[in-house]
């Protein structure tokens, strides 16, 4: 069992967390003006990097989204960071 650290609840088992995608994948502005390709990038395309990754995760038991830096090979995970406003 891997332990992830929720910025609000502290260290908790991995089964309480849900992957939420790449950090910084902002929803395109201007609904109708957005091209099919840009919608596709936002909705489906992922960086899916090998090594250091910056991701959004949800701690399902408290319902909060937060940012987490991990290594997708060693699976080492830094403590989660609270998201502030629109950043990053």
């Amino acid at each position, binding site marked *: *069992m*891997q332990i992830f650290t929720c910025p609000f609840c502290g260290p908790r*088992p*991995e*089964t309480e967390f*849900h*992957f939420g995608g790449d950090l910084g994948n902002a929803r395109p502005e201007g609904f109708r003006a957005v091209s*099919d*390709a840009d*919608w*596709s*990038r936002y*909705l*489906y*395309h*992922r*960086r*899916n*990097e*090998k*090594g250091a*990754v910056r*991701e959004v995760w949800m701690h399902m038991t408290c319902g909060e989204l937060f940012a987490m830096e991990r290594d*997708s*090979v*060693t*699976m080492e995970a830094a403590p989660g960071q609270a998201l502030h406003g629109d950043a990053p």
Partner: protein
Amino acid sequence: MTRHYSAFSLLREGITGQKGWEPAWRSPEPKPRYDVIIIGAGGHGLATAYYLAKNHGITDVAVIEKGWLGGGNTGRNTTVIRSNYFYPESVALYDLALRLYEGLSKDLNYNIMLSQRGMLNLVHFPADMEMAARLTNAMQINGVDAELLDRDQVRAMLPIYNYGPDARYPVAGGVLQPRGGIARHDAVAWGYARAASRAGVDIIQQCEVEDFIIEGGRCRGVRTSRGAIRADRVGMAVAGHSSVMAAKAGFSLPLISYALQACVSEPVKPVLDCTVIAPGPATYASQSDKGELVVGGALDRIPSYGQRGNLPVLQNVVAGLIEMFPAFRQLKLMRQWAGIVDVAPDSSPIIGESPLPGLFLNCGWGTGGFKAIPAGGTLLAHLLATGEHHDISRPFDLDRFATGRLIDEAAGSGIAH
């Protein structure tokens, strides 16, 4: 030298001291230029090379492999072959693979030990029988064998399952694909490698692709750990590492890489003569010819490139298995491992030209790549030879993520990817 495998050659070599066998494939030095380069010597890459030679007469081909051939997901899967999908596009794809598998041992002169012992999808509750009937009907309409079984028929076929009154995963019925089954996974890789090598294909192992050669906006080859190799058409079949290769080529893919685990028990006498999946615990099992129970389940839920699994998923799989088959509680697990699978948002593969012209994709097979190997090879070979889609691969182009014509098999056939 003995090239053809047969009872006669076995007898002759037995009499003459087994000295005449030639290596199953050559290991040549890479040439500076080929007509076609294929990245990845797993099942899909090797099958692509074989069908380029067989169907299109293109033999000036290199298959480049970072490690050893068949050492990725081709050697890590649970060897299940089936085409029990919902959408016509998927059935056309996976049944092409199944039909090719049915003739593959003869075609390759290599025994892939195909055993069409039946693929049984259990149904736990009476209400779920509606969906089971829908899947059975869809398969039959699409021209694939499928039978809807009631509880008694499942019980006759699978007597060791837990049918007790307090069973956690009861049985209301099942969907059987009689042509489904298992094959020897290593033999598929080795058989294609041998046949491709004999046709003139160079299989270059221990050669890592470091970058693409891009000239005039087109892919013109690859830079590898053993030097530059040029070709005007490049195909990639690298499963879990597809996004890593795509980043080198300057584009992204709608894929996430996850670890998928499997495990095997110690060998026992024959107890299970079909491949069975129970959707409740999302656990499936079959028994290998050696007697080991080969067991798998759902994906690990944490994106990963580490080829090992996490304990919570393994616990779920094993807990599900011993609920399904209480007799298996006494068995010891011998090995557990994981492969890295590239999962697309609609649980269907991506086949077609990439955003970099001259580079063609065969990826996104998720948890179901092994069963599709002959089709993936046929279709990528068609693309590399003609530059055009085969009718069967067209719906699986990358453009479906912009047009919205997704082929959502996770929803369609309810098969967990």
